[in-house]
């Protein structure tokens, strides 16, 4: 996977994860163009499109578009499953996740993504393992906090 973008129906970026080195300017340009292209697609169209020399796989969940750019040898259908797995993880973590969760807790969305994918590839194919690791990491972060406020991070 080269990059993953999450954006709303109005084209607002909610998460961007880049696995290839590009300048800020290039990232902005790619984001702008790709978001436009995907938003222009009609609901009945398929989830795959060819864009520049990449394959793009996208899926809409409620008000959020999940969009991945993969290489030519990558399997589009399994990428759909990867996207779905990430959504399931978010859902389990936040409890019926919605766009606002991802807006107000964007850093947690990143932590979850980074526990699931590394360098663009899946680290663990077990949902349970990924969730457990995040749980543990959160606890560790809590213990390490200088202040004594305690949050329940699991809804």
């Amino acid at each position, binding site marked *: 996977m080269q990059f993953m973008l999450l954006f709303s129906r109005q084209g607002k970026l909610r998460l961007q994860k880049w696995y290839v080195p590009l300048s800020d300017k290039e990232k902005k340009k790619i984001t702008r163009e790709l978001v436009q292209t995907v938003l222009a697609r009609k609901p*009945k169209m398929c989830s795959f499109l060819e864009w520049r020399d990449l394959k793009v796989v996208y899926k809409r969940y409620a008000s959020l578009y999940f969009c991945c750019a993969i290489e030519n040898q990558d399997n589009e259908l399994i990428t759909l499953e990867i996207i779905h797995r990430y959504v399931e993880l978010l859902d389990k973590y936040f409890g019926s996740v919605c766009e606002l969760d991802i807006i107000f807790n964007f850093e947690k969305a990143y932590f979850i993504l980074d526990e699931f994918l590394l360098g663009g590839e899946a680290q663990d194919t077990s949902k349970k393992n990924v969730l457990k690791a995040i749980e543990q990491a959160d606890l560790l972060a809590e213990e390490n906090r200088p202040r004594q406020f305690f949050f329940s991070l699991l809804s």
Partner: protein
Amino acid sequence: MSPSVRLQEMIRVIRGARTQGEERGVIQRECAAIRAQFRQADNGTRSHNLAKLLYVHMLGYPAHFGQMECVRLIASPRYNEKRVGYLGAMMLLDEKQDASLLITNSIKNDLSHSSQYVQSLALCTLGCMGSAEMCRDLAPEIDRLLRASNSYIKKKAALCAVHIVRKVPELGELFTPASRSLLSEKNHGVLHGAVVLITELCERNPETLEQFRKAVPELVQIMKGLVMSGYSPEHNVAGISDPFLQVRILRLLRILGRNNETASDAVNDLLAQVATNTDSSKTAGSAVLYETVLTVMDIKSESGLRVLAVNILGRFLLNNDRNIRYISMTSLQKIVQTDHNAVQRHRGTIVDCLKDQDASVKRRALELSLALVSAVNIRSLMKELLLFLSSCPPELRAHTTSGIFNAAERYAPSQRWHIDTILHVLTTAGGDVRDETVPNLIQLITTATELHCYTVHKLYRALIADISVQSLVQVACWCIGEYGDLLLRGECEETEPVQVAEDDVLDALETVLQSHMSSPATRGFALTATMKLSTRITHNVDRIRSIVSIYGSCIDVELQQRAVEYNALFKKYDHMRYPALSTTALGPVSSTAGGDLLDLLGGLDVTPGETRSYHVTRPGKTLGPNYRLFMTFVSHSHPPQSVQLQMKAPSGDVIPAHGLGQVTQTVLLNNPNKVSLKMRVRVCYTSQDFVCQDTVQIDSFPSPAW
């Protein structure tokens, strides 16, 4: 108040801004506060301030002043600060920034941290944005982790190694031994990482590929275990046991089995097993089947297995899920040349996909349909393609017409079918056809001699119905000009004849001439056709004369020049009108300058002074009594009045065949004002009972000529 709430509060305030300007104001204030906080000593809020900055960065605002803060936070002993620091590094630092090198040491330390979650942060960051230099520095550490750590770390180390190999391919050798032993691990995460790493190593190094071919049986075993095992709740996705791992193993087997008989043999059974046992009702199963098909087609599989693979793709075509239909067609496109017959069996379904709503599916279906055209199915398939053309999306029209013409040319069962097909396309999508369509169609019509009457009738009817499609109008005009007599005769075997008078036909042509929809080229065709009719009709020659003379003062230069030439034909060269305008014969019809008449410029006599002579040679043809040389000037404005042309009689009437002689006709050109001249020369002659004409244009005369 809790710092985390402060972050969320900031987000709320930013989102509450009603205008872009208001938002910018809020963000400027916040950034100033964050900057101030960064400068202060450690007060426990650093991680949250960085988090705020990262949010601002995601909105598109500059955040480079946070880079050093990332470096500081990564070096912090506190996990929550490290976590945000590493996240910041991945978002704000890339390998192009100098600051990224500063974190190399921290990463190195964290890779051996006592907490696996800290190690994980370091591995993740290195695997995401590590530069070549950082990778070289830290590769030995990664190798160490690949060998001796728990599964949690091993799986991450494997993927980190993948990144390193992509950045610095030579380091692949370092990881090869460790990755081999990882295949015996039971943990799926580690296995998955190992397979991805081995795939990367094998793709980059043929020797490594050789080595890992020995691992094929082991991979087959693992795969069998996944496919045949019972329900495993931890890894089950829609009834498939760990589809992610299955797909990666299949891909690795593909690379190992390519161009290698032994390896391919070893996996044949497995592939058949996966193909038959995998449930494709959900995406997970289809993903595995898809990868299986790709592998079957790429390695040296036995033919039975290939047929099985193509049938899977055929089944995919019937799937309700549009994504699966699209994937299927993409794959079929890749194999339609090599496994043509197998794909033909699914032609019906493919053609049905022409009616799909999705434009990408339509495009795929079009390309596949065109690839499947054969002599056997041309009639039925062309019906579908023409139907598709009438409703296809605009961006596909040019491709469709082009494909239809190619197919028609290769497999037309009859000339009439061919002409009908091209006419159908011109009527439906004449604006989206290639430029060569008009001359090609004219050529085709000329050769279909028994169909001239039929064709001119069809084209006449098309012309009076609609004159907006230029390509169609051009061909129609040409045809009426050539075969107008057949039209006026009022009888036709192949189709219902029209009952038209000469005036009606001339009306049609004049409508084209006068219409604002007609392009200059089209007008040219119409004028020439009108002129040609002067030799095919009997009553209305005067009308034609007047049309032609009107256009002698037309603004369009091409048209004017043509009209002037035709006028000349009427006035001075009336005896040549018939031969010049008679039916174009079979034989070397060249509408471009060239052909046999290139000899025109051979043997130039440059006599000093103001006259030039040209020798016309026509080797290999017998010239009959109808030999005539017909020359006109082509110039930028008017035929130059200062230039005089005098044609002498030809030296003979007959040129013997086989280059045994020549006829010379001298033309004297007097050009006292030395104006630059271009000339068009047309030679009319009879050859073997056919009246022929050739045209050549002389664009420049050698400079010492005048």
